[in-house]
């Protein structure tokens, strides 16, 4: 079931290639299960499916690639060469040399080479008025930070205005 789910997740069409991949994977998994009794069947099946994938697509990945990354690299190539074209890989390993080289060199480059430039922040130069206002603001900042004090001052100012307007 899990192996089938995985091939579904790979959007692999339900065709003979898929059946062969599954069957050969299951066969190897069953053989291994006889030797490795305590290894879960799900794991064995998925590992053998992956081995089947390696046999089909492993040659598209640079040889030095480690096991951990190999599977991801294979899938990346499948993805970039369109999932619909899977069949071509299944049916023939004899891919044209140039295409093979190109596939081996596939690397996702998200950005172009750097052509760096400099953009330096310039300090803000305040006028004389600006400097004075800045000092004033710094002096009264603590009052503004207290919400209660700000309300008291505001209401007091309004009350004085109202009283003098009576």
């Amino acid at each position, binding site marked *: 079931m899990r192996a089938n789910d995985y091939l579904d997740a790979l959007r692999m069409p339900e065709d003979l290639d898929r059946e062969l991949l599954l069957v050969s994977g299951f066969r190897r998994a069953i053989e291994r299960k006889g030797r490795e009794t305590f290894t879960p069947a799900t794991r064995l099946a998925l590992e053998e499916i992956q081995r089947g994938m390696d046999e089909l697509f492993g040659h598209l990945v640079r040889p030095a690639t480690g096991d951990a990354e190999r599977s991801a690299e294979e899938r990346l190539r499948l993805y970039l060469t369109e999932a619909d074209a899977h069949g071509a890989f299944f049916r023939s390993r004899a891919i044209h040399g140039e295409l093979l080289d190109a596939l081996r060199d596939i690397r996702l480059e998200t950005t172009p080479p750097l052509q760096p430039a400099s953009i330096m922040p310039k300090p803000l130069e305040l006028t004389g008025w600006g400097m004075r206002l800045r000092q004033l603001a710094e002096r009264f900042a603590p009052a503004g930070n207290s919400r209660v004090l700000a309300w008291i001052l505001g209401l007091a100012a309004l009350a004085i*205005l109202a009283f003098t307007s009576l």
Partner: protein
Amino acid sequence: MNGNMGGNKAARFVQFAGSVSLEQAFENKVRSRRLAVLMVTAGLFLLGLWLLSDIYTAEGWTPLRALSFALFALLFAGLAFGFTQAFLGFLALADGNEPLKITNTLDPSTPLASTAVIIPVFNEDPATVFGNLRALYESLRRRGELEAFEFYILSDSTDPSRAVMEELAWTDLCRQADGFGRIHYRRRKLPVNRKSGNVADFCRRWGHRHRYMVVLDADSIMTGEAVASLVRLMEVNPRAGIIQTMPRLAKAETLFGRVQQFAARVYSPIFAAGLNFWQQETGNYWGHNAIIRIAPFLTCCGLPELPGSEPLGGRILSHDFVEAALMRAHGWEVWFAYDLDGSYEGLPPNLTEYVKRDRRWCQGNLQHAWFLLARGVRGISRLHLIQGILAYASAPLLLLFILAGGLQAALDHLRHRAGNAAPASSLVLFLLTLSLLFGPKLLSLLHLFSRPHELKSYGGPWRVTAGVILETLFSVLTVPVMVWFHTRFVLRNLAGQTVSWHTQTRDGGNGPRWRDVLAEYWPLPAAAAVFGPAAWWIGHDYAVWLAPILLGLWLAAPVVQLSGRKGVLSRFFQTPEETAPAPELIHNYRLNLRDGDGLVHALLDPYYNAVHASLQPKRVRNAPAVEDYVAGLAAKLFREGPDALSAREKRAVLADGPTVARLHDLIWRTPGQLMNPFWTRAIEGYRSRRPASPSEAQRSAERARATALLAA
């Protein structure tokens, strides 16, 4: 005159100006225009002040009236200036032959230059961002002008799910559109200095790769023709540092969005023409849908740190006005291509989202006060900055004006003083204020009626008139809400605080949830419940004066909720962008993206996992402590599922390509009973052909089939 006029028009202009040079003629003309704006504004302003002083003199001056008078002066100046701009814009459009506009210099045969189209994004919907980009990409391809452009999605997204989906959207878009090498994607690990820092980072990395950059927002859409025209305008105007377009609002679906869209479409042409009429080469920059010459941007627009700390100091939030001011300070021109078609932007779907956006803009604009006090900033740039500040600061001033007037009226009522002592002046002032408020709407309607072909795309004369009336009623109801929010934002910022949001708006087409709306807006009807009876006690006439404001407060919650719905009053508020949209607006470029959590897909989907793992920077070797930390997080993620990790921890796991690849293998290869049920359920989501729980008969058939195949 910098060559900013087409050949015939330039010649006509020189003839008109006499024997002076083109440059001088331009300066003289612009000076006379600015003088006209000043005179009309000053005339209206002084008339308003004179009428109010006549009223107050008759009623007797008091400190409260003096305060009201000062506040009125500030508010009325803005009103008079806005009306003047609209009026002169109306005249300029009626003349139909504006010689002084940047688009007069457009020559379609001008060769294009290397241009970067940059889209800074921050936790946006990838389908929208990449769909809009694809529309522009295909538009340029159809025109055969793609070669000159490269596209950069500059992500600052901190949401791990969104970040993963952006990578996949980028890969999918490049695959579909053959865009590898032309469409680029870069995500910063930390959103330092937010959008301005994002753009500056782009400049540092690729500043010498392109001559221009077209800056788009996540919801911006531009046609290929508009973008190519901007590049050509830059090429023929070598002193232009920035050219800003007039983005039209588009793609709104809710009532609120469509009302704003309609209002902007109907009213903005005369305001935009009026703005260009006087500002000319001293224009402003609105942060998107504009083109920037990169070389002067690098030398002039390094943004300074402001004195003090946030919200009013520290890093600059709204960079656009400041960058325009800095360009101008260094002698570069900033133009407004107000009549260049093909520039669009989206807008928030409801009033709550709208004011959330205003909250950020308010803080950013208030920070600009520092630049009013800075050396080297030109006069008209200061005027732009003041306008930006007053866009929000006018709300508390208006509230204080109303409160001071109300308090004085209450005191008069207590002392049994006579009511209106100067009825004639009061009436004239009332009519004058109404004219300044609603005059531009009438002028806009008049302008539209003079263009029968255009009028059809608004649904015809009756529908557009009804739309204007309904929009006016809607704005009367929503202005008190906006005043309330803007006042809160300004006061909080002045007190050194920012405004946080308690609720999250979930909009499924039926508007924001009632519960959220009531939780956010209950103070408004509560205020109306206090001030309504108080106004009635002061005097019935006074209560009638205040009625529109009180009505807006009473109805705030239902107005916000109902206007956030789709399909309400859909016969009205039609715009040309709805009835005859540009192809770029109705594109249907679908990305082949799975729904759901990007993090889960990055771990489970074989392709997403491969793409994400390959995009992570290759590390030679992490420090053991870092490796242990990431391994511990990965183990926790596997054991307990994604909810057990914070966003920061998720980002740490996702940033490690080999770990992501290993987790993929581990989850798929572990039997369901040995791992967290979350992963089992998530894996079932990828099952496409078989039912989730096959029947016993199906299981037997499958077993038989497998046995037969094995035997074969």
